[in-house]
């Protein structure tokens, strides 16, 4: 199995802290080297040199795997994007690019994205400090043999000025069905920017937030240290999680039969439906996850359910059903909404979900 497949197959082995409401925590650190212009200003040879320099700096230090993007098929690349291991910008960019991965520790480094390095660390549950430590470790390694572009006032220099300073973006993905049901998300949305944080729907915006999944992240990186950033996010997320739990308890207390019925119907649908669109999947996902928290659903756990979020997306589906190269499935699913191929995709999705939840 190639490394890309391993990344796509790999589910988080452990449940993270506060996994009833927190899906995952991510830290991303942007870095550039002072000896080279930023990737977009480099010619192919220059971008290759950056890759070479990074590889030399870290190759003997750890169990890193180096994935040259030239070796991956389009469905594999898109599947990695759906898993948010690589960004859309990274995919669109010129071919001289690389992904460095340490799958066990959830570390993924994009070389030659917008910046020379985008060090990303992903941990399950609410674990922002652990995620930072992991990314910081790689940062220290790369700092060893190449000089970073840095200014005493502006901090780490990045292509986009919004990332100056620490170059660090911390984000926590939260499942907030009860807050959403009580229409309290708006309050949070209004309050957070005042303290330099943002909350937004993970799938879609406004009233239609798919799966009741939200992402909280910092939007300021200059004039605040890494530790201060983490210390600022921590109590905010804790408070939101507490609020979510209180609302969940209230819902169960006040409308036990109603919510039990909704959850059991979702269970019946996901186990039996012949076709499931990605939008419907997200609604079912949210109900089932709540059902696990209440103990109403017992034969599905958070881990399996969360893994579906990525596995039933189009490119991942096509990889699953299209064999080694993903071509057959790819053709089946790449059709637009009105295409007959789309119905086929919904059938495959329902089939695959049943297979995984068996």
């Amino acid at each position, binding site marked *: 199995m190639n490394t890309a497949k391993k990344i796509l197959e790999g589910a988080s082995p452990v449940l993270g802290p506060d996994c009833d409401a927190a899906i995952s925590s991510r830290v991303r650190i942007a870095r550039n080297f002072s000896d080279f*212009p*930023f990737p977009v200003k480099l*010619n192919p040879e220059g971008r290759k040199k950056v890759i070479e320099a990074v590889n030399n700096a870290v190759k003997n230090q750890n169990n890193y795997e180096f994935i040259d993007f030239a070796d991956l098929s389009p469905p594999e690349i898109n599947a990695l994007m759906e898993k948010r291991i690589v960004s859309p910008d990274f995919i669109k960019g010129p071919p001289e690019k690389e992904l460095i991965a340490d799958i066990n520790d959830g570390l993924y480094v994009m070389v030659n994205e917008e910046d020379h390095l985008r060090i990303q660390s992903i941990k399950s549950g609410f674990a922002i400090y652990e995620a930072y430590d992991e990314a910081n470790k790689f*940062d220290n390694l790369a700092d060893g043999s190449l000089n970073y572009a840095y200014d005493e*006032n502006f901090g780490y220099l*990045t292509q986009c000025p919004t990332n100056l300073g620490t170059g660090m973006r911390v984000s926590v993905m939260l499942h907030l069905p009860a807050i959403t049901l009580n229409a309290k998300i708006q309050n949070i949305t209004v309050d957070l920017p005042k303290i330099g944080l943002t909350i937004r729907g993970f799938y879609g915006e406004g009233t239609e937030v798919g799966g009741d999944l939200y992402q909280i992240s910092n939007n300021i990186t200059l004039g605040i240290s890494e530790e201060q950033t983490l210390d600022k996010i921590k109590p905010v997320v804790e408070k939101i999680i507490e609020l979510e739990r209180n609302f969940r308890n209230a819902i169960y207390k006040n409308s036990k039969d109603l919510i039990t019925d909704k959850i059991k119907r979702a269970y019946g649908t996901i186990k039996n439906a012949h076709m499931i669109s990605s939008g419907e999947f997200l609604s079912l996902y949210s109900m089932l996850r709540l059902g696990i928290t209440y103990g109403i659903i017992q034969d599905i756990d958070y881990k399996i359910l969360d893994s579906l979020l990525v596995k039933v997306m189009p490119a991942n589906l096509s990889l699953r059903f299209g064999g080694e190269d993903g071509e057959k499935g790819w053709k089946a699913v790449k059709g637009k909404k009105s295409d007959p191929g789309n119905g086929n995709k919904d059938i495959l999705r329902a089939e695959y979900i049943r297979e995984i939840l068996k």
Partner: protein
Amino acid sequence: MFFEFEPEIFNVFILKPSQGHPNSIPAAEKKICKMCGVSFADITKTGKAGCGECYETFKNELTHSIIRIHGAVNHTGKIPKNRRVKISAKRKLEELSFRMQKAVGEQNFEEAANIRDEINKIKTEAGEV
């Protein structure tokens, strides 16, 4: 406007070759950043700098926008290895001199003297900072 991200970041306009980095893409006009060849107009147009040197070259022009984004222009976070000793000594000295002045203001001269000794010690250790 740094908040407006342009999707087409690859608008590579190659006209006159510049005397930049051997691996840099030749820039469109006579440019100011010596390393990557972009002008301040390029940066405002795309919302992106071309290299680390751009921030030095256009420091004055960029400072205002950066304050608008972050509300600050003073990095207080991590420092790269090759600058760590010097910059952390400098940060420490700033903090100590602030504390020394406060001690003097409170007529706490013994503490002020202690802090002054500490300042001198750091200055000797770090060389001229």
